[in-house]
Protein backbone atom coordinates (compact mmCIF):
# COMPACT_ATOMS: atom_id res chain seq x y z
CA UNK A 1 0.00 0.00 0.00
CA UNK A 2 2.83 2.36 1.00
CA UNK A 3 4.80 1.46 -2.13
CA UNK A 4 1.72 2.10 -4.28
CA UNK A 5 1.19 5.53 -2.69
CA UNK A 6 4.85 6.45 -3.30
CA UNK A 7 4.60 5.23 -6.92
CA UNK A 8 1.42 7.25 -7.45
CA UNK A 9 3.04 10.36 -5.96
CA UNK A 10 6.13 9.89 -8.18
CA UNK A 11 3.89 9.48 -11.27
CA UNK A 12 1.97 12.67 -10.41
CA UNK A 13 5.29 14.49 -9.90
CA UNK A 14 6.60 13.37 -13.32
CA UNK A 15 3.31 14.43 -14.94
CA UNK A 16 3.60 17.84 -13.24
CA UNK A 17 7.20 18.22 -14.44
CA UNK A 18 6.20 17.45 -18.05
CA UNK A 19 3.21 19.79 -17.81
CA UNK A 20 5.32 22.54 -16.24
CA UNK A 21 7.92 22.20 -19.01
CA UNK A 22 5.21 22.34 -21.67
CA UNK A 23 3.72 25.47 -20.08
CA UNK A 24 7.11 27.18 -19.79
CA UNK A 25 8.35 26.42 -23.31
CA UNK A 26 5.23 26.20 -25.49
CA UNK A 27 2.39 28.06 -23.75
CA UNK A 28 3.91 31.10 -22.00
CA UNK A 29 4.50 33.99 -24.40
CA UNK A 30 7.90 35.59 -25.03
CA UNK A 31 8.62 38.41 -22.63
CA UNK A 32 8.84 41.80 -24.44
CA UNK A 33 12.34 42.89 -23.39
CA UNK A 34 14.15 39.66 -22.52
CA UNK A 35 12.46 37.51 -25.19
CA UNK A 36 13.12 33.77 -24.96
CA UNK A 37 15.88 34.04 -22.32
CA UNK A 38 13.18 34.98 -19.81
CA UNK A 39 11.98 31.34 -19.86
CA UNK A 40 14.94 30.50 -17.61
CA UNK A 41 12.86 32.24 -14.94
CA UNK A 42 10.40 29.28 -14.87
CA UNK A 43 13.14 27.02 -13.46
CA UNK A 44 15.19 29.64 -11.62
CA UNK A 45 12.54 31.18 -9.34
CA UNK A 46 10.72 27.95 -8.31
CA UNK A 47 14.13 26.41 -7.48
CA UNK A 48 14.89 29.39 -5.23
CA UNK A 49 11.48 29.07 -3.51
CA UNK A 50 11.99 25.33 -2.89
CA UNK A 51 15.55 25.93 -1.62
CA UNK A 52 14.23 28.47 0.91
CA UNK A 53 11.53 26.07 2.03
CA UNK A 54 14.01 23.24 2.57
CA UNK A 55 16.42 25.46 4.47
CA UNK A 56 13.42 26.17 6.73
CA UNK A 57 12.96 22.38 7.13
CA UNK A 58 16.64 22.19 8.07
CA UNK A 59 16.15 25.01 10.59
CA UNK A 60 13.19 23.22 12.23
CA UNK A 61 15.13 19.94 12.27
CA UNK A 62 18.13 21.64 13.89
CA UNK A 63 15.92 23.27 16.54
CA UNK A 64 14.21 19.92 17.11
CA UNK A 65 17.55 18.16 17.55
CA UNK A 66 18.79 20.71 20.10
CA UNK A 67 15.46 20.59 21.95
CA UNK A 68 15.14 16.79 22.15
CA UNK A 69 18.75 15.61 22.30
CA UNK A 70 18.62 14.93 26.06
CA UNK A 71 14.94 14.22 26.69
CA UNK A 72 13.92 12.16 23.62
CA UNK A 73 16.88 10.69 21.72
CA UNK A 74 14.63 9.02 19.12
CA UNK A 75 12.94 12.30 18.21
CA UNK A 76 16.33 14.04 18.22
CA UNK A 77 17.71 11.56 15.67
CA UNK A 78 14.64 11.99 13.43
CA UNK A 79 14.95 15.79 13.71
CA UNK A 80 18.64 15.56 12.83
CA UNK A 81 17.79 13.48 9.75
CA UNK A 82 15.28 16.15 8.65
CA UNK A 83 17.91 18.86 9.28
CA UNK A 84 20.47 17.08 7.12
CA UNK A 85 17.96 16.19 4.39
CA UNK A 86 16.65 19.79 4.25
CA UNK A 87 20.18 21.24 4.06
CA UNK A 88 21.40 18.82 1.39
CA UNK A 89 18.36 19.04 -0.91
CA UNK A 90 18.29 22.81 -0.29
CA UNK A 91 21.91 23.03 -1.49
CA UNK A 92 20.97 21.10 -4.66
CA UNK A 93 18.19 23.59 -5.45
CA UNK A 94 20.37 26.56 -4.47
CA UNK A 95 23.07 25.27 -6.87
CA UNK A 96 20.47 25.27 -9.66
CA UNK A 97 19.60 28.88 -8.72
CA UNK A 98 23.26 29.94 -8.80
CA UNK A 99 23.81 28.38 -12.23
CA UNK A 100 20.58 29.34 -14.01
CA UNK A 101 20.77 32.92 -12.64
CA UNK A 102 24.09 33.79 -14.30
CA UNK A 103 22.90 32.12 -17.54
CA UNK A 104 19.94 34.49 -17.55
CA UNK A 105 22.13 37.42 -16.43
CA UNK A 106 24.52 36.91 -19.35
CA UNK A 107 21.67 37.38 -21.82
CA UNK A 108 19.79 40.10 -19.92
CA UNK A 109 22.69 42.17 -18.52
CA UNK A 110 25.59 41.05 -20.68
CA UNK A 111 27.51 39.80 -17.61
CA UNK A 112 27.63 36.46 -15.80
CA UNK A 113 27.88 37.85 -12.28
CA UNK A 114 27.77 41.05 -10.29
CA UNK A 115 28.34 41.53 -6.57
CA UNK A 116 24.92 42.96 -5.88
CA UNK A 117 23.04 42.25 -2.64
CA UNK A 118 20.72 39.49 -3.91
CA UNK A 119 23.43 37.53 -5.71
CA UNK A 120 26.01 37.93 -2.95
CA UNK A 121 23.66 36.94 -0.11
CA UNK A 122 22.51 33.89 -2.12
CA UNK A 123 26.13 32.84 -2.66
CA UNK A 124 26.82 33.29 1.07
CA UNK A 125 23.74 31.16 1.86
CA UNK A 126 25.02 28.40 -0.44
CA UNK A 127 28.50 28.56 1.13
CA UNK A 128 27.07 28.32 4.67
CA UNK A 129 25.08 25.19 3.82
CA UNK A 130 27.96 23.64 1.86
CA UNK A 131 30.12 24.14 4.97
CA UNK A 132 27.30 22.52 7.01
CA UNK A 133 27.44 19.47 4.72
CA UNK A 134 31.26 19.36 4.85
CA UNK A 135 31.12 19.52 8.65
CA UNK A 136 28.72 16.58 8.69
CA UNK A 137 30.80 14.63 6.21
CA UNK A 138 34.30 15.08 7.63
CA UNK A 139 34.02 15.96 11.34
CA UNK A 140 33.95 13.15 13.87
CA UNK A 141 32.98 12.89 17.52
CA UNK A 142 29.89 13.07 19.68
CA UNK A 143 29.38 16.83 19.21
CA UNK A 144 29.12 16.87 15.41
CA UNK A 145 25.32 16.81 15.32
CA UNK A 146 25.12 19.61 17.90
CA UNK A 147 27.66 21.78 16.07
CA UNK A 148 25.86 21.14 12.77
CA UNK A 149 22.50 22.07 14.33
CA UNK A 150 23.93 25.38 15.58
CA UNK A 151 25.43 26.11 12.15
CA UNK A 152 22.11 25.14 10.53
CA UNK A 153 20.24 27.64 12.70
CA UNK A 154 22.71 30.45 11.95
CA UNK A 155 22.69 29.55 8.24
CA UNK A 156 18.92 29.87 8.11
CA UNK A 157 19.22 33.46 9.35
CA UNK A 158 20.58 34.35 5.90
CA UNK A 159 17.34 33.19 4.19
CA UNK A 160 15.23 36.24 5.17
CA UNK A 161 18.20 38.49 4.27
CA UNK A 162 18.34 36.93 0.78
CA UNK A 163 14.56 37.27 0.45
CA UNK A 164 14.52 40.93 1.53
CA UNK A 165 17.77 41.95 -0.20
CA UNK A 166 16.13 43.35 -3.34
CA UNK A 167 13.60 45.20 -1.19
CA UNK A 168 16.09 46.67 1.29
CA UNK A 169 18.84 47.61 -1.15
CA UNK A 170 19.02 48.85 -4.70
CA UNK A 171 20.08 45.79 -6.69
CA UNK A 172 20.67 44.86 -10.30
CA UNK A 173 18.55 41.75 -9.72
CA UNK A 174 14.93 42.09 -10.97
CA UNK A 175 12.34 43.27 -8.48
CA UNK A 176 10.37 40.67 -6.47
CA UNK A 177 7.84 38.45 -8.25
CA UNK A 178 5.55 38.63 -5.21
CA UNK A 179 5.28 41.31 -2.55
CA UNK A 180 7.10 44.02 -4.52
CA UNK A 181 5.76 47.40 -5.62
CA UNK A 182 2.96 47.85 -8.17
CA UNK A 183 5.36 47.77 -11.16
CA UNK A 184 6.95 44.46 -10.21
CA UNK A 185 5.66 40.91 -10.61
CA UNK A 186 4.15 38.95 -13.48
CA UNK A 187 1.38 40.79 -15.31
CA UNK A 188 0.52 38.29 -18.05
CA UNK A 189 -1.92 35.62 -16.76
CA UNK A 190 -0.48 32.96 -19.12
CA UNK A 191 3.00 33.58 -17.70
CA UNK A 192 1.56 33.47 -14.20
CA UNK A 193 -0.05 30.09 -14.92
CA UNK A 194 3.19 28.69 -16.36
CA UNK A 195 5.06 29.97 -13.31
CA UNK A 196 2.47 28.48 -10.91
CA UNK A 197 2.65 25.05 -12.57
CA UNK A 198 6.43 25.06 -12.37
CA UNK A 199 6.37 26.06 -8.69
CA UNK A 200 4.00 23.14 -8.03
CA UNK A 201 6.08 20.72 -10.11
CA UNK A 202 9.40 21.64 -8.48
CA UNK A 203 7.83 21.56 -5.04
CA UNK A 204 6.47 18.05 -5.70
CA UNK A 205 9.86 16.92 -7.03
CA UNK A 206 11.68 18.50 -4.10
CA UNK A 207 9.41 16.82 -1.52
CA UNK A 208 10.02 13.47 -3.24
CA UNK A 209 13.81 13.73 -3.04
CA UNK A 210 13.65 15.26 0.45
CA UNK A 211 11.68 12.23 1.66
CA UNK A 212 14.16 9.90 -0.07
CA UNK A 213 17.13 11.68 1.55
CA UNK A 214 15.43 11.52 4.96
CA UNK A 215 14.81 7.78 4.52
CA UNK A 216 18.46 7.15 3.53
CA UNK A 217 19.68 9.09 6.57
CA UNK A 218 17.40 7.16 8.92
CA UNK A 219 18.73 3.90 7.45
CA UNK A 220 22.27 5.18 8.04
CA UNK A 221 21.45 6.07 11.66
CA UNK A 222 19.95 2.60 12.25
CA UNK A 223 23.03 0.94 10.76
CA UNK A 224 25.33 3.02 12.99
CA UNK A 225 23.25 2.11 16.06
CA UNK A 226 23.37 -1.56 15.11
CA UNK A 227 27.15 -1.43 14.61
CA UNK A 228 27.58 0.32 17.97
CA UNK A 229 25.45 -2.33 19.72
CA UNK A 230 27.46 -5.10 18.05
CA UNK A 231 30.74 -3.48 19.16
CA UNK A 232 29.41 -3.25 22.73
CA UNK A 233 28.33 -6.88 22.57
CA UNK A 234 31.79 -7.94 21.39
CA UNK A 235 33.46 -5.98 24.19
CA UNK A 236 31.21 -7.45 26.87
CA UNK A 237 31.84 -11.02 25.66
CA UNK A 238 35.63 -10.47 25.35
Amino acid at each position, binding site marked *: MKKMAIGLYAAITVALMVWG*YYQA*IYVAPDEQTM*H*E*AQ*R*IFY*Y*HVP*SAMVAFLFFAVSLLGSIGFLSFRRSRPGWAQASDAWALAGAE*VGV*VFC*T*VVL*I*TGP*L*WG*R*RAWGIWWTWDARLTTTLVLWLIYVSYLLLRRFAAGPQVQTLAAVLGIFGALDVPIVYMSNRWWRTQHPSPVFGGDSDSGIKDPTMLHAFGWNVLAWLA*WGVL*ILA*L*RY*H*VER*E*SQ*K*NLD*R*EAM*EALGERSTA
Partner: protein
Amino acid sequence: MDQRAILDHQFVVAAYFITWVIQLGYVAFLGLKWRAQKRNAIRSGRAAR
Protein backbone atom coordinates in the same frame (compact mmCIF):
# COMPACT_ATOMS: atom_id res chain seq x y z
CA MET B 1 16.06 33.54 -36.67
CA ASP B 2 18.53 36.30 -35.87
CA GLN B 3 21.72 35.79 -33.91
CA ARG B 4 20.22 37.09 -30.65
CA ALA B 5 17.25 34.71 -30.82
CA ILE B 6 19.57 31.74 -31.49
CA LEU B 7 21.74 32.66 -28.49
CA ASP B 8 18.67 33.17 -26.27
CA HIS B 9 17.43 29.73 -27.27
CA GLN B 10 20.81 28.12 -26.55
CA PHE B 11 20.95 29.72 -23.09
CA VAL B 12 17.45 28.46 -22.25
CA VAL B 13 18.40 24.94 -23.41
CA ALA B 14 21.62 25.11 -21.35
CA ALA B 15 19.76 26.28 -18.21
CA TYR B 16 17.11 23.54 -18.46
CA PHE B 17 19.67 20.86 -19.31
CA ILE B 18 22.01 21.78 -16.43
CA THR B 19 19.06 21.88 -14.01
CA TRP B 20 18.12 18.31 -14.96
CA VAL B 21 21.70 17.07 -14.88
CA ILE B 22 22.03 18.38 -11.30
CA GLN B 23 18.68 17.01 -10.15
CA LEU B 24 19.01 13.58 -11.76
CA GLY B 25 22.67 13.35 -10.75
CA TYR B 26 21.65 13.95 -7.15
CA VAL B 27 18.89 11.31 -7.35
CA ALA B 28 21.45 8.82 -8.75
CA PHE B 29 23.82 9.70 -5.86
CA LEU B 30 20.98 9.10 -3.38
CA GLY B 31 20.18 5.78 -5.05
CA LEU B 32 23.78 4.61 -4.64
CA LYS B 33 23.83 5.77 -1.03
CA TRP B 34 20.59 3.94 -0.31
CA ARG B 35 21.94 0.74 -1.86
CA ALA B 36 25.11 1.01 0.23
CA GLN B 37 23.00 1.41 3.41
CA LYS B 38 20.93 -1.64 2.51
CA ARG B 39 24.11 -3.68 1.96
CA ASN B 40 25.46 -2.50 5.32
CA ALA B 41 22.23 -3.52 7.01
CA ILE B 42 22.38 -7.00 5.47
CA ARG B 43 26.09 -7.39 6.37
CA SER B 44 25.60 -6.31 10.01
CA GLY B 45 22.51 -8.55 10.23
CA ARG B 46 24.62 -11.52 9.09
CA ALA B 47 27.42 -10.59 11.49
CA ALA B 48 24.95 -10.48 14.38
CA ARG B 49 23.85 -14.03 13.57
